[in-house]
């Protein structure tokens, strides 16, 4: 029997859902967005070896891959991590709509067994939706380690759904979970009817069920689910059912009466009802070990240091320095150099092949000097991005990032942001591309946009070679000081920009900051690698589309003059002419030379190009000592060098970052305005720096 089933994966954040999804789907994953919203959607296909033993699919018992996608593949849709099915966030709406309207065959509810009380709150709501639910109790290894016991059968009885104990990170219980899910899909059990209400709430709920049953069924919704949402005052549900004014009025009366009897408002009543049911359920099915509830857990002990009133911030700074040391220090540089060598080798190889094949010279030029070199220069910072992502992914999966957001919330509030903005902005010190992408985890669009606009001011890793070079040329004795000043300068400008943007564009406060502090856990290597791979793939895709075009454009502009003949030198080319045209703009900033403005223009492609362009224009090797002298030629004074650095620090981000920002801001207009705004800010700041330096006699 060939049947394509769809399983939805639902659960709290930090419940190990990602780990489970990775275990179930392996590399058969696709990451995208839910239509119309920037909520990440992951879908995948169940690995065949998990089907093992079911026989229905005719799969060999010990699986292995099939040659083509079979029409008995099982599709797995990973829903966003949610705590409830309220109508207040996109994640919740997307999840409940998917389950009720797209009607997957089974909902696999993953539950953090060390946190059962709060996790079951979502479970109770999922059970109402009408789709068969299979509950996976994850992190059972930790439960056992605490000495606690969960009576799985008892739990299953209370919830009227199959329950299975698993440990996703170790791969335990997975096959049993799949078997139960397939079983539920095939036998399509009726919706559980778990009656959790008592007293006045019970009366009110049943009155509403009775009232809306026909309309609910007409739109394909479980009446109990519809009624419960109406009970909670859920506006989208009212709309979906298209209730008449009379019906609304009756419901309102029912609920008002209930509120008076219960002494609480309706949403509180429902929440209270659910949690009390959970408490009763746990009394019967959760046996606590001899451990005292107040005894500090391992996580608590770690937190004594990491969120210590005095030590927390220094420890955090050290942590960040460690991340940057790994990314930009000996290890990171070794990887980056190795990768760059590979890329260069590849380009050389292709170049030779083209030459041997007697391809037209202009085409050779286009491919080698244009496309490959350009793309190569951008790809060359991929190792840095990947390493950075790895470090940050480890920090996130371990649970430390939540603590960082906790520590940073108060300072960020002054800017109108919240603690969650901190992570993207810190990442911006590595590379704007992953930083901006990580802002996706923020559910408030306002917060996301605000954060993304400020992130580019954080001096990214690509600018480091520029600073390093200039520092060597002009400030040899004060290299570290100057580099630190650059970083601090970026932060200061970001703060100022933030304060201004808050007043002008992003009125009001950030989204409420109510966040779970998960237990510290060792990140799973598989998850970290998968994360790295996803981000790298995303970046490379971007590199090949946007940057491909941009590199061809730049190559063309710098190789040809306005008569479309090969230009004798860069200065004669279109780019050179353009640079000559805009150079006067930089005159007040102290670097109104064609060379400087050419470098600025190529820096739009990739910040490292600033260095290579200056080298090419001066006719020297960027690595050589002659480069330093050449720089002195282009920038006559220390003031002009500092001013140039300031401009490079702050002006629009590179093409890759621009493309990422456009996507995450969901608007080309915003991205363009941001780029223009940054150029404006850069210009003003460079001017200030130049004038101040002149005054200081530099």
């Amino acid at each position: 029997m060939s049947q394509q089933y769809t399983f939805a994966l639902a659960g709290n954040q930090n419940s190990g859902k990602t780990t489970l999804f990775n275990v179930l789907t392996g590399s058969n994953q696709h990451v995208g967005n839910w239509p119309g919203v920037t909520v990440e959607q992951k879908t995948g296909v169940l690995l065949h070896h998990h089907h093992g033993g079911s026989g229905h699919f005719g799969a060999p018992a010990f699986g292995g891959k099939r040659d083509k996608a079979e029409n008995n593949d099982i599709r797995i849709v990973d829903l966003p991590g949610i705590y409830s099915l309220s109508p207040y966030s996109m994640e919740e709406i997307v999840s409940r709509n998917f389950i009720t309207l797209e009607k997957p065959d089974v909902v696999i509810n993953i539950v953090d067994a060390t946190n059962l009380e709060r996790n079951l709150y979502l479970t109770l709501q999922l059970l109402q939706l009408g789709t068969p639910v299979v509950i996976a109790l994850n992190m059972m290894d930790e439960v056992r380690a605490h000495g606690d016991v969960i009576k799985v059968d008892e739990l299953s009885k209370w919830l009227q759904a199959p329950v299975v104990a698993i440990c996703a990170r170790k791969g335990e219980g997975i096959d049993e979970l799949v078997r139960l899910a397939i079983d539920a899909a095939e036998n399509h059990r009726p919706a559980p009817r778990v009656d959790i209400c008592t007293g006045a709430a019970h009366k009110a709920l049943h009155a509403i069920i009775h009232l809306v049953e026909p309309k609910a069924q007409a739109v394909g919704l479980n009446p109990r689910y519809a009624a419960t949402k109406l009970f909670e005052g859920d506006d989208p549900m009212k709309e979906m059912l298209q209730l008449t004014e009379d019906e609304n009025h009756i419901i309102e009366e029912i609920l008002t009466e209930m509120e008076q009897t219960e002494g609480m408002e309706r949403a509180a009543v429902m929440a209270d009802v659910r949690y009390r049911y959970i408490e009763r359920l746990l009394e019967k099915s959760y046996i606590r070990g001899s451990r005292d509830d107040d005894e500090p857990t391992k996580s608590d002990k770690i937190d004594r240091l990491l969120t210590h009133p005095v030590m927390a911030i220094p420890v955090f700074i050290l942590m960040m320095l460690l991340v940057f040391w790994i990314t930009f220090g000996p290890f990171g540089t070794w990887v980056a150099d190795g990768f760059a060598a590979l890329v260069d080798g590849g380009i050389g190889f292709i170049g030779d092949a083209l030459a041997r094949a007697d391809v037209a010279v202009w085409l050779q030029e286009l491919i080698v000097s244009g496309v490959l070199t350009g793309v190569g220069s951008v790809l060359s910072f991929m190792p840095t991005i990947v390493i950075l992502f790895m470090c940050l992914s480890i920090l996130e999966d371990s649970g430390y990032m939540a603590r960082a957001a906790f520590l940073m919330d108060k300072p960020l509030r002054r800017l109108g942001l919240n603690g969650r903005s901190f992570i993207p902005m810190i990442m911006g010190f590595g590379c704007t591309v992953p930083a901006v992408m990580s802002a996706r985890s923020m559910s408030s669009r306002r917060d996301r946009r605000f954060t993304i606009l400020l992130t580019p001011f954080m001096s990214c890793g690509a600018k480091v070679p520029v600073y390093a070079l200039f520092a060597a040329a002009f400030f040899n004795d004060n290299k570290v000081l100057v580099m630190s000043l650059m970083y601090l300068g970026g932060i200061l400008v970001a703060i100022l920009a933030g304060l201004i943007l808050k007043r002008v564009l992003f009125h009001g406060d950030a989204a409420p900051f109510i966040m779970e502090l998960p237990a510290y856990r060792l990140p799973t290597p598989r998850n970290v690698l998968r994360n790295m791979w996803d981000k790298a793939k995303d970046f490379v895709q971007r590199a090949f589309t946007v940057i491909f075009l941009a590199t061809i454009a730049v190559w063309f502009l710098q190789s040809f003059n306005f008569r479309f003949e090969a230009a004798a030198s860069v200065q004669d080319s279109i780019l050179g002419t353009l640079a000559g045209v805009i150079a006067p703009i930089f005159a007040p900033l102290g670097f109104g030379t064609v060379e400087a403005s050419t470098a600025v223009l190529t820096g739009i492609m990739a910040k490292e190009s600033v260095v290579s362009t200056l080298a090419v224009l001066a006719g020297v090797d960027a690595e050589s000592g002659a480069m330093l002298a050449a720089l002195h030629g282009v920038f006559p004074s220390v003031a002009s060098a500092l001013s140039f650095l300031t401009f490079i620090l702050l002006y629009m981000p590179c093409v890759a970052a621009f493309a990422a920002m456009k996507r995450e801001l969901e608007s080309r207009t915003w991205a363009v305005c941001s780029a223009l705004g940054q150029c404006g800010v850069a210009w003003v700041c460079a001017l200030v720096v130049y004038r101040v330096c002149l005054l200081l006699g530099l």
Partner: protein
Amino acid sequence: MDKKQPAAKRENVAQLQPGEWGIVDTVGGEGALHRHLLDMGITPGVHVTLRKTAPMGDPLEIHLRGYSLTLRKDDAARITLRQEEEQE
């Protein structure tokens, strides 16, 4: 700190000191905030303990239903605690 008695004279969660606990009386806030507080387990009658505060006193880390939650002082102030009846 007496484990058997909730902290005296703390009207809301924001007033708790590290280590003190109380029983929630009402949950304030509106709309999304109110709902989120309830969803995360802050319901009338629940036992909450203040674990610690961030270096600047804000946000707070509270412990309830077996897990830890961060909460801003402003939001915590909206969660009132049951007061012990005065015994004459």
